């Protein structure tokens, strides 16, 4: 176990700043960074892979039905009713909403994998869900 005094952490942070290059947030800042529609929507293989990824990374909070109910109760958003369109889906999944306990997945999942999860979730959608952006 190595101890990490605050000052060391700060120095390390300054170093990483130089080394890291553009972050996920910067990379997706442009408006049309993502297609309006999930390129993998309806793709059987993508849906299967997306389900596998969902049950690995998302199920703990969003629950087995993707309704936001999990071990910890009514915990997260109901993704069957996702209505913000595909580009927002990618953006939120990459960056999270850390102030609301939605973690960022940039650096864990790449865009392709996020599309696969999106393709799986689209198959669960309820009335009112919107996956294609205007």
């Amino acid at each position, binding site marked *: 176990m190595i*101890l990490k005094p*605050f000052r060391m952490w*700060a120095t390390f942070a*300054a170093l990483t700043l130089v*080394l890291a290059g553009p972050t996920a947030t910067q990379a997706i800042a442009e408006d049309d960074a993502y297609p309006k529609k999930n390129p993998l929507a309806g793709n059987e293989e993508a849906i299967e892979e997306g389900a596998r990824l969902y049950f*690995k990374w998302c199920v703990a909070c969003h629950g087995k039905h993707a309704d936001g109910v999990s*071990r910890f*109760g009514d915990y997260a958003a109901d993704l069957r009713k996702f209505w913000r369109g595909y580009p927002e889906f990618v953006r939120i999944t990459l960056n999270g909403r850390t*102030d609301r306990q939605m*973690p960022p997945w940039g650096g864990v999942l790449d865009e392709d994998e996020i599309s696969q999860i999106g393709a799986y979730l689209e198959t669960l959608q309820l009335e009112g869900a919107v996956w294609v952006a205007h």
Partner: protein
Amino acid sequence: MNLGQVIPIARSVQVAVVATALGAFTATTAFADPESNASRIRNCPDSDWCHYHRTVDKGWRYSPLAQINKSNVHELRPAWIFQPGHQRMGNHVTPLVIDGVMFATSNPSTVWAIDAATGDRIWSFVPEMDQAVVSRSFFAHTRGLSVGDGRVYMGTADGRMIALDAHNGEVLWDVQIVDSAKETAGFSGAGTFVSSDLFVIGQNGGEYPIEGKIFGLDPNNGDVKWTFYTTGRGDDAALATWGGDSWKYGGGGSWQPATIDFANNQAIFGTGNPNPDYDYCGDQCRDPNVDAHRPGDNLYTSSTVALDLDTGKLNWYFQEAPSDPYDYDSSPGEFMIIDDKVVHPGKNGFMHVFDSKTGQPVNVYAAQKTQNWTTGFNLETGEWENMLWPKAGEKTLVCPAIDGGHSWNPGTYNPNNGLFYRTIQEWCMWLTIAPKGGADYITAGTETRTTEPFAQAFMAAEWIGTAPPGDTTHGYITARDPVSGEIAWEKRYDIIPHSTLLSTAGGLLFNGTTDGYLEAMDADNGGLLWSFNNGSGHHGGIISYKAGGKQFILAATGHGSYVGRAVESLNKDKMVNFQESAAFVAYSLD
């Protein structure tokens, strides 16, 4: 942080930049000058609340103050209210009061110093944390903090221990103890200041495939003096109770503060459940050689452990559920020291009474009425008898539910009448353990063990809370002799209260109800003497202290812990608007 390991750059850079630019945020409007030397903390004055359970060495939550008593409690009214602002999940904290200054925390890891007589803020401290880590943890909440030798000790959700100057909230040291970027688990906050040389705290972690740990730290600088591995590292006897290398992912940890047994130079902790929470090996699970996630008894998870203060070595242990098939971890439930006994209300629905020196169980009795997981503990053979072993894939009724017969909200022991008061939860769950390889009907956590790039919650079952057979879910406050178990009185609540309890020398017992009321009862018979609608459920501490010559009662209000949510989901119609709100409400006689 392990030697040679580098923080994944892309994920931590934004947070790191913030940390560099701003550091943590301390706001000071005044300076406090509380006397908090080690001797005062160890011999807590009647006026103070020095530790999570008031005193470091008893775990009683009993206040020797009697200005507020049976004859005048009806005149109790709010003196001040302090709102910590937006906070997910309400207050879980039990604040401390030392020499007129209240030290409190709010979620995830913010610290407040408040004038205990007026509610005026003295200073506050918001640590900059790795938000990616904090947001993916299920334990981004705080149960409290510790004070001693002029420092405030705060365990953060991202695995650091931070010591602040009690006078102004300035950071004295800040040490990464748990590699939370990897383990996801961190600290829920409250540790125990033992002496000028020792501070002890456990990390949370039963839901994660990690090695849970308990730490002995030097309060002067945060140096780790010893580490106790709750899944057996370095202990052959313990490792023999885990199949293969499953101990490396065995969870455990310890997420509530210890009680210190100074007579035997030991800290009494409860450890978390093994990981995953559930396993598919059914009635073969105790055999370390069977095919399973974590075959064997899984020492020292779901156990009471007594650790030597100087070395962190195990003096004795008692496992409250071998190869725990129910998630009855032993972290919740206070460890009381009464004469030469350690008494622990377990999540398993039992009360455990041990000889504090040897750990020999002297009485183990069912406190919950509807438990069905065992016919009881045999003091002669040292075995839990006729344990229920749910089969993978089969829906099985298990009582108590995962949320426990006793939960983490501590009860209180009144030495004047010898009665122990405790909330007991009567509920069950329909448990379906995921078969080998996982199943998409699981409700919780990943299907398989995930440790890279960081640990994901891994629970491997589905469970649905339900009422005990022939009844509705309900709770009791029970008053009894803690050693013999003999009941003096009990009081039923149709909505389980999930509040801490407080007893006082004024002959009073305080409870906070889930539907909003702080209530004062006659400690002798449970008769209601006073109540006040706080407009919010209760999970946090109810404490008493004296400031400016006056006795106060203070409740940390707010609803939304996981157990609280389970209560809520079973009582939706009665529980509107009680989530997430939080305040510190102080009461006095005038």
